């Protein structure tokens, strides 16, 4: 199969991920959207790497994976801190900051 199809798939996944971040009100689901966007970028990097016939893009994907893992740690820690206080992780509910 032509590897450019995987780039299209990556673009679709990226769009789904950003739609999730912008529309879903649950912090965990929004965060999953971010992860989907990062992995879409990974898929794009690897497919482009294949198209160009070199391994550079695959190496970059490894960097992105490590960074994404670090981001998950920090993100879940913040979400858990919010949950323990409010017993809720809705993004609509915490509304002390407005304007």
């Amino acid at each position, binding site marked *: 199969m032509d590897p450019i199809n995987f780039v299209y798939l990556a673009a679709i996944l990226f769009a789904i991920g*950003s739609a999730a971040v912008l529309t879903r009100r649950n*912090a965990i689901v*929004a965060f999953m959207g971010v992860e989907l966007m990062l992995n879409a970028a990974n898929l794009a990097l690897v497919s482009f790497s294949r198209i160009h016939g070199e391994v550079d893009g695959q190496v970059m994907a490894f960097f992105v994976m490590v960074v994404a893992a670090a*981001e998950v740690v920090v993100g879940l820690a*913040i979400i858990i*801190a919010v949950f323990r206080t409010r017993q809720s992780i809705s993004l609509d509910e*915490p509304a002390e900051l407005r304007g």
Partner: protein
Amino acid sequence: MTFVTPTIEWAPLIPMMIVLGAAALGVLLEAIIRNPATRRVVQFVLSIAALLVAAGAAVLQWATLEGAGTIVMNGMITVDRQSLLWQIIILLFGIFGAMLFASRTSAGESAFTPLGASVPGSQDETIARRKGFELTEVFPLALFAVGGMMLFTSVTDFIFLFVALEVFSLPLYIMVAVSRRRRLLSHEASLKYFLLGAFSSAFYLFGAALLYGATGQSSYEGVALVVQQTASTDPLLLTGAVMVIVGLLFKLGAVPFHSWTPDAYQGAPTPVTAFMAAATKAAAAAALLRIVYTTFYTLGWELSWLFWAVAIASMVLGTVVALVQTDIKRMLAYSSIAHAGFILVAFGGFSSQALSALPVYLVTYGVATIGAFAVVTQVRERTEDGSIGGEATRLGQWAGLGKRSPLLAGAMALFLLSFAGIPLTAGFIGKFQAFSAAIDGGAWVLVLIAVLASAASVFFYVRLIILMFFTDVPEGAEEAVEVDHSPLARAVVVLTMILVLVLGIVPGWFLDAANNAAVLLIGVAG
């Protein structure tokens, strides 16, 4: 396929290695030193020492730099005068930030919660407070953030830039969440900052992937060569370029990517707000500058609409919304959005003068910002039993501050005048440089709008000055606000005040340095 081990020139990386090494050492010390009071002193001394030594090393490199600079790790990092100047600027902000982190009120309270993991209002929190716990992790976190920002200004590879972006963002997300008072607000600010920050970095990353796809290169130089050769209308290339720039505009806090700014600024502990307001903007502006002038310079015509639109929107919205704010931290946040617009004005004409104008602008803006937030940390509410409470951030509480503390109110007035760009303050020099860079590029319409926005912004800055000096304290409210004396925060106020005056009255030496730095080692412009 064979892999060639890259040879790394370590010498140009020394300033960053010192800061990141000290950060790792700081994490280790957290585990070894049990006594909170000792740990706090050790961490503070370590941070300041590391930042000072790193700044010394960077200045030394500046002085002994041979030729235009060094390219390290096959073009991943470029250390030239431009990047050294930004590194020194960020180290300066880091030093002020560390001093504010360590400052305590006269009641001995730091700005951070004693135990970050405790639930607000719980038994754990009370016990932690009574036992005198200290959240000294903020010092290593700040060092990681400073190290990441220094990398951010020097990196010349799109994927490595993403790594540097996260290295400085992740510590900031945590630091925003650990305020001592109003912890729900702080948590909420952190959650919003994190989600939007992660969203924007994913945006950036996908843009970088598209650029790699379009060109087969990930270094600025490699992409730049392809951009020059091919027709610039390649949709993959243009989409990638726009997404990369949008990701960085998020970090800069420009409209319409600003929505995290007021919340994060208000909810974060004020010392953290001071540090990130100054340093994040500097790092983002530096990276944007390098990318635009190295890689996308020949796309100037295709991309200028983006800079124009975002700059105008930021200036107008930042100024208008700042007018109606009643909380001082939020007002400063919206003012910072307007300043993001002024920063983008310098890009407006794609003139190479921006390379010397932006370091000047960011120093003048950052120093005044840190000073202003340092003043905010010292204007406190008085609790019912007479002790010092949280910060008095409502504008009304600042009435009559000029009589209580002429030094603090005078310093605040100076910083506000500098934000407004009144002559004889640093802000005037910064704005003059940024606007003349845009004029040089022919963007005089943009400059006209910027000057009008700047004039309108004087209104809300002066309103606060009038409130501090010419408004009487309302009856019965004299006792509600207390001015705190914490030596470190006072020192930051005085130092930033001196810098604002020096840069405003005798800016020649700094302008010379910035002109020296206006050459990129690899790049089309300059």
